[in-house]
């Protein structure tokens, strides 16, 4: 009976260490390793009723399902990251059977090897800058406007200081990006996140990913931490650091722009 499809998380080189025995992947299925042509595909056998094209599409509309699946996928990638440098595949990469996975490896092996060489020992750090203009500039005049003229004056001042703040935020983000990209091997500027999606306070003015050798991560993080002082003169600015991630944003072959993130 071959009802199980193959959900592939990542491709990597053979590694010695064992994965955590408790590790479960998507659909609660432990991941296993499929070795072919000197490469390893990390996959789970998943039920066709959930992962065939139609049911998968339907599931992806279900935020709870998407969230659980994304976290399970990430759990496997995280576990792999502790023992090797995995080349993560996009969420929802499913094959009919092992033979489909092998054929895919054969078709892509040269590219996989080049990319794995390039990314070996590297991790990705995410850095976002937010400006919470609402906090920095009160929406309403602090004192009641005494006249129409006074009201307009206050309004103009708010607008002006708002513009100034956006400019300061831009300048800050640019400076930060220059400093960080100087310490990174590569970077991607992703589209800023919509605050309606992230639920984060303020507006996301920069959403960047940096490729950093694992051994230099500490310095990189310190550099981000060190920006505290620089942004003191612009209230409402916030810097968020996420990572270390597997190098998701850098899996494109060199020269590609690395996915949909507009530059």
């Amino acid at each position, binding site marked *: 009976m071959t009802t199980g499809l193959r959900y592939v998380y990542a491709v990597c080189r053979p590694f010695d260490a064992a994965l955590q025995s408790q590790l479960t992947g998507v659909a609660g299925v432990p991941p296993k390793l499929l070795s072919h042509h000197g490469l390893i595909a990390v996959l789970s056998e998943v039920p066709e009723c959930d992962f065939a094209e139609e049911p998968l599409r339907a599931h992806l509309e279900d935020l709870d399902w998407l969230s659980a699946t994304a976290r399970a996928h990430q759990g496997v990638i995280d576990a792999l990251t502790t023992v090797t440098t995995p080349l993560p595949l996009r969420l929802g990469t*499913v094959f009919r059977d092992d033979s*489909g996975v092998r054929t895919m490896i054969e078709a892509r092996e040269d590219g996989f090897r080049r990319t794995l060489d390039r990314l070996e020992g590297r991790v990705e750090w995410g850095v976002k800058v937010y400006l919470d203009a609402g906090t920095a500039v009160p929406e309403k005049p602090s004192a009641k406007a005494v006249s129409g003229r006074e009201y307009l004056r206050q309004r103009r001042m708010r607008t002006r200081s708002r513009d100034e703040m956006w400019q300061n935020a831009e300048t800050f983000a640019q400076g930060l990006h220059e400093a960080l990209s100087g310490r990174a091997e590569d970077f991607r500027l992703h589209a800023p996140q919509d605050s309606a999606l992230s639920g984060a306070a303020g507006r996301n003015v920069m959403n960047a990913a940096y490729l950093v050798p694992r051994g230099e991560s500490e310095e990189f993080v310190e550099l981000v931490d060190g920006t505290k002082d620089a942004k003191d003169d612009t209230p409402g600015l916030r810097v968020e650091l996420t990572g270390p991630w597997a190098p998701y944003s850098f*899996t494109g072959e060199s020269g590609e722009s690395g996915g949909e993130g507009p530059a």
Partner: protein
Amino acid sequence: MTVVERREVALVDLLDRLLAGGVVITGDLTLRIADVDLVRIDLNALISSVNENVPPPWEEAP
């Protein structure tokens, strides 16, 4: 206002990477489900979910 935060990974950061990053494999043997239009579907799901629960108070553009 000057804190560098390191919280539990937010879903949106996760999806930024899992749906927009990673190696895209297309070919006859895949089910062709790892493609760009999924990002749109998923973001629609996110938007509708967010709107249901939390009407964002920061709609106003700068």
